[in-house]
């Protein structure tokens, strides 16, 4: 039988606020345990939550970016369960009336076609703390620094049909939230995490199969691996006549397997009810308009514009609209270079990316600024330097030796275009290579192109790469 996977994702995105969702404690990552857990985060007796306006603004921003409905009245609810990393014994989340409902996001599939994924809702909630299982004799340590950090949970409809689609969707959300500036999207630090609801059904049928919820997926690679693993497990079970049990499973990246979560064994009854410590949030049309005006250009729009305005390929546009930083970098470089979009694209996707990867740097920490790169490309375009010399200039810029023009001047890298000077070198090389000259002259036309390379190489060497290659070629052809 042919099986069809049905997948929905719940993506948890930590919002990049300074303070927590309901308290004035800092959200900075990596602090010593519990130093950023204030009285409210610890759930001390008598404390009360107060909603962070910026978190609400960020949730609305996301909603607008996915063409969703923004609630005019939104309510916080308590989700009641006991767990040591949940200090109050309930999580303040949203149940009825989330901030964001009914959005959509288009993803591009492998065959180049586009597919619309429906976003059921996105709601605000507080993150839990962290349990540390190693390092304590028969104990688990609890660090509540993360408790109360604002999250939006983005829930998709079960519209995804393969692990690849799931990964593409997850990446697209990741790009989007970083574009919007509402999350740093740092997956190592847990700012961007995903649960996947996975079921399978016979291809061609409508009825949904029993699903398993996979928890703890924190990379694009793992989302594919975990879902593939789970699909295979479910198909195996069904084909051997077993049933799927609805359960929560934990993905273990080390073993590449999923296993049932002990802590979620009993079916939970979360007893959601409106948090009586918090009043409904009122979001006005004016609030929404104000936020809409601050929305940046979104990735899809940027990609299309790059193809149209800069005549870039689909691939280049995709790469250069992958984050706001790289898009801004590209556009600054082009503007400094005075055009040369393709050349800028090649340098950014090629040498610059390679250098950043080799040095393990983010674009924001690039040793070469966008205007420096643009300045260099301008010099390639006006024939001041050759593409080959440009590599030297680029390396010098990477080492902090200044702008392209300064480097070209101080190292004397300016291309030689004076015909007399080039002719002198050409003559010297021809005179010093009688054998090669003979061989060239004896060869038929179709083999000469290859043999001329020897002379070009010698001339470039003698000119330290500065001779204009077109001029060298022309002179050689004339003289030989």
């Amino acid at each position, binding site marked *: 039988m042919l099986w069809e996977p049905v997948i929905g994702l719940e993506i948890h995105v930590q919002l990049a606020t300074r303070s927590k969702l309901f308290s004035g404690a800092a959200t900075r990552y990596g602090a010593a345990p519990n130093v950023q857990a204030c009285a409210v985060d610890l759930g001390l007796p008598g404390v009360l939550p107060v909603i962070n306006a910026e978190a609400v603004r960020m949730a609305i921003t996301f909603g607008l970016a996915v063409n969703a409905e923004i609630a005019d009245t939104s309510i916080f609810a308590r989700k009641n369960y006991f767990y040591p990393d949940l*200090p109050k*014994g309930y999580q303040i989340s949203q149940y009825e009336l989330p901030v964001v409902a009914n959005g959509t996001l288009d993803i591009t599939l492998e065959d180049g076609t586009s597919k619309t994924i429906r976003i059921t809702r996105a709601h605000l909630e507080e993150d839990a703390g962290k349990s540390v299982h190693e390092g304590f004799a028969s104990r688990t340590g609890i660090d509540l620094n993360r408790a109360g950090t604002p999250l939006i949970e983005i829930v998709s409809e079960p519209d995804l049909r393969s692990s690849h689609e799931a990964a593409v969707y997850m990446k697209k959300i990741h790009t989007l939230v970083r574009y919007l500036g509402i999350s740093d999207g740092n997956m190592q630090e847990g700012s961007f995490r995903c649960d996947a609801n996975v079921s399978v059904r016979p291809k061609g049928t409508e009825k949904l199969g029993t699903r398993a919820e996979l928890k703890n997926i924190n990379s694009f690679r793992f989302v594919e691996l975990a879902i593939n693993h789970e699909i295979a497990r479910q198909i195996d079970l069904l084909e051997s006549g077993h049933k799927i049990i609805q359960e929560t499973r934990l993905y273990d990246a080390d073993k590449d397997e999923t296993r049932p979560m002990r802590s979620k064994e009993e079916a939970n009854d979360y007893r959601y009810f409106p948090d009586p410590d918090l009043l409904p949030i009122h979001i006005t049309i004016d609030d929404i308009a104000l936020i809409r005006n601050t929305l940046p250009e979104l990735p899809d729009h940027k990609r299309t514009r790059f193809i149209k305005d800069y005549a870039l390929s689909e691939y280049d546009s995709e790469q250069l609209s992958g984050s706001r930083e790289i898009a801004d970098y590209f556009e600054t470089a082009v503007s400094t270079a005075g055009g040369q979009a393709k050349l800028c694209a090649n340098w950014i996707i090629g040498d610059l990316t390679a250098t950043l990867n080799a040095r393990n740097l983010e674009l924001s920490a690039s040793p070469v600024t966008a205007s420096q790169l643009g300045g260099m490309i301008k010099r390639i375009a006006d024939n001041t330097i050759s593409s080959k010399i440009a590599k030297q200039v680029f390396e010098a810029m990477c080492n902090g030796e200044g702008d392209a023009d300064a480097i070209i001047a101080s190292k004397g890298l300016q291309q030689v275009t004076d015909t007399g000077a080039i002719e002198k070198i050409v003559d010297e090389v021809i005179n010093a290579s009688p054998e090669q000259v003979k061989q060239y002259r004896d060869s038929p036309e179709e083999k000469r192109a290859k043999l001329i390379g020897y002379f070009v190489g010698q001339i470039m060497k003698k000119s330290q790469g500065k001779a204009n290659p077109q001029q060298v070629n022309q002179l050689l052809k004339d003289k030989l």
Partner: protein
Amino acid sequence: MHEHTLAELSRLLNTGKISSTELTRLYLERAERLNPQLNGYINTTPERALAQAKAADLTILHKNHGPLTGIPIAHKDIFCVDGTRTSCGSKMLDNFIAPYNATVVEKLDAAGMVTLGKTNMDEFAMGSSTETSYYGPTTNPWDTSRVPGGSSGGSASVVAARLAPAATGTDTGGSIRQPAALCGITGLKPTYGLVSRYGMIAFASSLDQGGPMSRTAEDAAMLMNAMVGFDPRDSTSLARPKLDYTAHLSDSLAGVKVGIPKQYFTDDLDTDTANKVQEAIKQFEQAGASLHPVDLPNTHLSIPAYYVIAPAEASSNLSRFDGVRFGYRCQNPVDLLDLYTRSRAEGFGREVKRRIMIGTYVLSAGYFDAYYLKAQKIRRLIRDDFQNALKQVDVIMGPTTPKPAFKLNELIDDPVSMYLSDIFTVSVNLAGLPAISIPAGFSGQLPIGLQIIGDYFSEAKLLNIAHQYQLHTDWHKQTPGGFA
């Protein structure tokens, strides 16, 4: 000296007739001597009190003082006082030294008041008799074989017995007004949102409200001036223009319309209580007020709705007591579940556990709509009843409780009968309205309370009406025998 009201003590301190330190010592001495009969204080905090008194005396010396500077007060042990054990009457918090101050405590400290100590209460404010306290029951100074009411029974008892000139209380379903009535003092529950709930250990968040417990309405007005105010730490705190609650105490009662709901004068009402309350109401008529029948048709549903909503919120509010970050932890837990279930079973008392279970049940899958949602709908009906009535009249009057103080242990094993003693008070909390209870006579030697309910933010009016009554009566001046 201990017979003085706050207004009188204020004058004595201001004119240097007595120092705050002398006054504080006097009350601490009375507390030490007389509290064993009452168990109204869980503990006094003499060191803190005397340090505050000393500071107050300096402030008075430098003429930087306000009307409350140097006057002692007792806090219900539900308010966090930094560095002081704040137990909420529970074994669960017997070892809990609060690491911060409740906003109410900060405000009264800032007004220069001196904290004498922490008063006894029903565990987590769940009760109407102060018998559910881990620290044993508080007794009623008018008859120590009887309860003082609850849950703020400790505060009511120490104020009535003059072991403190005033106290703070909290009122979720009548916990200020009912003990005030049973102990013969004045107790005001303000409009929901006027007094910050920050640092006041939550019972039922949408119902809880702190307020003053004092000898007189004038004293309550002075305390309101210090207690009320916007608090950015409490999302349900209201930002309103500052009022002087003492400004209208002397207003005439001529023309005031008093509503009398027939639902408050039923056959269940104790005859003596009914008669005394009717007599008190007649006095208002003589003072120029007019009486009008009003209808509160859903009154009988207030207890059922309350005993769904309050336990539902409480069941969630009390989940934080899990033996992990503070409070009681059971010995040698074998695993996490054991840590939770045993710490909570051993740390909470019987009534608290009953309410947690009821609250858990009414919120659980399959029962939510029939109980919790239904109760929320009835809550609206009850609020609408009051709004309709208060369109016709300025205030509503009736008894605070169906009968005077009952005997210790009389109702402790009968939760439903205990709950029914809140019949006249809980609807006010469901609606979020302000109400005051004032002494209106005695049944034998036991005090009877008159409840006056007003529209939202009508505290100044309620205090004015209560004060005018107290100018013409002396019920509030009576001191229980043995505590004179």
